[in-house]
């Protein structure tokens, strides 16, 4: 086996040194009743060639570009990834080290994560970012737990237009400790109904997503003011951070915590994971923040360097009193996002965001011309909800055969929206792709 370097002579001489006669003797302390009764029943080893053939076959069953045109977003976005980003993030010096516990030997990862923290904090208009969490959903759950810690209150208001799968994760995290959730319904215009917040007290947090699950851009400023009036923290969440290349950032609209999914920044969809949990907040809350943090310091000679810091919040020191149990996060994905943001720059990100918006608007307009109804009138970024013609369920299968995936049916998530689909258009969709979809829908 090519990953195991030991020759028979090595094994013999090493066993000799430890005073044993066979490899089995190394396990003499394991009681008989803890042992396997038989050998592992697993498939026999594959060569690299055989493995590649097998995996090509499996991966070949997936409907992906360029053969398929997939118009689904809903928390996972097809964006163009520059070759330089994939190349750099794939360097084994970034891929194969551990968490940078020994800073002198890990300055590359540490500086890169410090830069990542800076870039996402600037993008979202907040003062501090952590080194990443697992994904957007767990980032939101952690944000809510953090607000509960800070306020000492146990009830949170959650918009019904936060990604439905994120809301499920939040419920899973909150259930055992008995925190309750006040769900904010949505209005006909596709925005969160904030009326339940008027005069609401004892809320730990108010959490909204923008752009929301329907793609609509929420009025964060108003929601934030209502949250703060009742003494709650204002959490804004996102599934599509590209939007903040164009839109007003959460920080300038009153967010105390802005968190969400960063997959759009150079990370492939990869069937939903790994993603990147982006988490930013105000400096005054930093000691209540979950996750790792990189800070700037200096070395013995006074030169600038970076270390993991404020670890007294963390589980290996505080154990059950830690702000979170998270240790391994999504460091390599954070690095990838930083490389992506560095490649685009502020002006480039604006240009990309505009392309996303303009292309989505084009498809919206053309679908309308073809007789579809745009379900919600509020402005959107790169996703929107459309009501296809009544006979669409049958046409859907025909579209799949033509290798077009025409959005995500909302019926499983919002039963009242049967026949409505959530569509996403990013910079990767050409006018030709969109015209093909419209042509099929119209026919």
């Amino acid at each position: 086996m090519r990953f195991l370097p030991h020759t028979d002579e090595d094994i013999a001489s090493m066993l000799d040194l430890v005073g044993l006669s066979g490899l089995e003797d190394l396990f003499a302390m394991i009681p008989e009743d803890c042992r396997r009764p038989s050998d592992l029943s697993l498939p026999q080893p594959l060569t690299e060639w055989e493995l590649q053939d097998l995996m090509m076959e499996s991966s070949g069953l997936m409907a992906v570009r360029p053969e398929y045109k997939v118009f689904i977003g809903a928390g996972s976005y097809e964006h163009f990834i520059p070759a330089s980003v994939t190349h750099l993030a794939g360097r084994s010096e970034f891929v194969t080290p551990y968490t940078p516990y020994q800073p002198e030997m890990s300055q590359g990862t540490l500086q890169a994560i410090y830069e990542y923290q800076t870039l996402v904090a600037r993008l979202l208009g907040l003062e501090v970012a952590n080194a990443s969490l697992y994904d957007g959903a767990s980032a939101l759950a952690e944000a809510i737990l953090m607000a509960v810690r800070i306020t000492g209150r146990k009830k949170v208001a959650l918009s019904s237009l936060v990604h439905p799968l994120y809301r499920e994760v939040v419920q899973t995290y909150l259930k055992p400790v008995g925190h309750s959730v006040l769900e904010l319904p949505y209005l006909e215009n596709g925005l969160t109904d904030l009326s339940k917040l008027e005069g609401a007290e004892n809320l730990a947090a108010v959490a909204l997503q923008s752009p929301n699950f329907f793609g609509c851009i929420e009025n964060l400023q108003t929601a934030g003011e209502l949250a703060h009036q009742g003494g709650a923290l204002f959490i804004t969440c996102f599934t599509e951070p590209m939007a903040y290349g164009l839109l007003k950032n959460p920080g300038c609209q009153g967010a105390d915590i802005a968190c969400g999914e960063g997959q759009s920044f150079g990370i492939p969809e990869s069937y939903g994971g790994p993603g990147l949990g982006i988490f930013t907040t105000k400096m005054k809350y930093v000691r209540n923040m979950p996750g790792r943090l990189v800070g700037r310091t200096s070395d013995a000679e006074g030169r600038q360097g970076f270390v993991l810091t404020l670890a007294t919040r963390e589980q290996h020191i505080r154990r059950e009193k830690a702000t979170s149990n998270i240790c391994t996060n999504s460091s390599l994905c954070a690095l990838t996002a930083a490389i992506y943001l560095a490649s685009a720059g502020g002006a480039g990100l604006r240009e990309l965001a505009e392309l996303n918006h303009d292309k989505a608007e084009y498809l919206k307009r053309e679908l309308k011309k073809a007789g579809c109804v745009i379900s919600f009138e509020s402005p959107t970024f790169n996703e929107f909800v459309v009501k296809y013609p009544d006979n669409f369920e049958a046409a859907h299968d025909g579209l799949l055969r033509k290798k077009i995936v025409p959005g995500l049916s909302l019926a499983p998530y919002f039963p009242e929206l049967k026949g409505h689909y959530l569509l996403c258009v990013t910079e990767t969709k050409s006018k030709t792709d969109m015209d093909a979809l419209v042509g099929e829908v119209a026919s």
Partner: protein
Amino acid sequence: MKELPGTTGLLINEPLLWEKGRAGRCGFSFPRRDVEPASLDEALIGQVPDLPGLSEVDVVRHYTRLSQWNFCVDTGMYPLGSCTMKYNPKINEKMARLTGFATAHPLLPGRCSQGAMRLMFELERLLAEITGMNAVTLQPAAGAQGELTGMLIIHAFHEKNGQGRSKIIIPDTAHGTNPASAALCGFRAVPVKSNEQGILTPETIASVMNEDTAGIMVTNPNTLGLFEENIKQIAEIVHLRGGLVYCDGANLNAVMGIVDMGAMGVDLLHLNLHKTFSTPHGGGGPGSGPLCVNKQLEPFLPVPRPVQENGSFRLSEDFPDTIGRMHAFYGNFGVMIKAYSYIRSLGPDNLKKASQLAVLNANYVKESLKGVFHLPFDRPCMHECVFTDQFQRAFKVSTLDMVKRLMDYGFHPPTVYFPLVVNGAIMIEPTETESKEDLDLFIEACKAIVSEAEEKAPLLHEAPHKCIRGRLDETKAARQPCLTG
């Protein structure tokens, strides 16, 4: 003395991104604009994000230079205890990048995603066989989330049985995340001590186990690198009083093909694919922390779950007792591909061999360094061994000084000051992918450092000397936090 790997080389300085950036530069190839600009309410539009502008060459040099400041498994031996820094096979990376996997959308219709579901379904079966457990969820994104999933299931199990149990037994040799994971579910940790041999006794557990205790979280092999020999009796005691046994499987690399976790009495067990199953650590993730359970806990696993029906696969949510969802989608699929590739590349005999050689390597290091460093538990170890700095304290040299000096010799330091039960711990886990020659060099470097400790202590106090930076001031970083630039 043989030539040790550490040397000095030319490393290139590199400023922070924004010190390097210039307005007007960009490193991105934009897709062609084939639609007209569309209007958007001015009130919604923000300022252009304050991100530096860099050309593609700037970006490539910046990150290439930073990468050269890192030490990694591909550079050399990385014997971090309890982290299993084994070699990460390159073929696995290639498989994870196959277009069909890497660019697949998670909400594709079922008929368009059979390949991914098949891989997840099969990986669950492979992990169940390797551990001796009945059912597996791949959703947890890392070991700590696997622990949390396990705690949520224990909570849901007792609740279903109409019992509100509030405590969890956690030994002093468990992983540091365990108490934090238990606390997230509202459990109170009941700490228990291991005996003078470094393992748990049934008597200790019997003395704290009661009807208000939801279960025990035990790490086996434990963080001293020792096998919990009394695990079966301990499990019986916990079960008798209605509790469940959670095993932290971060150290599974020691026992693949050898133990049967189910037979040991374990009810729940999480794995770290980024430890035992060779997927890279990425400088701190992404990992993947599948949770394996026995038959009675299967109904509580998170949804959705891949199921097979008439030769095809679908994701089912039809499990009424489920704890819910732990991940927006299905977990870190990209990491699962690598672990699956690893298991299929090794097959049953090589997986067992990997564990045997991991244990052989650890015992070889333990025997070779015994007497050089103080060995607090002098008994056969599993995949890692724990020393202390007790012999060197006389020369005012600490564990930290010695491991910083190890960098100069070209090795990554072991895990230090953990587990907490050992004062000044040095926890070495070589893994099976280190050759005898490399272990010999490591041992030689340790011996050289111990000689230096006696003769030239200041050299160690000031180490490292050959890294891009000298010893960094962690106190200053914490006292005056500077977290963004």
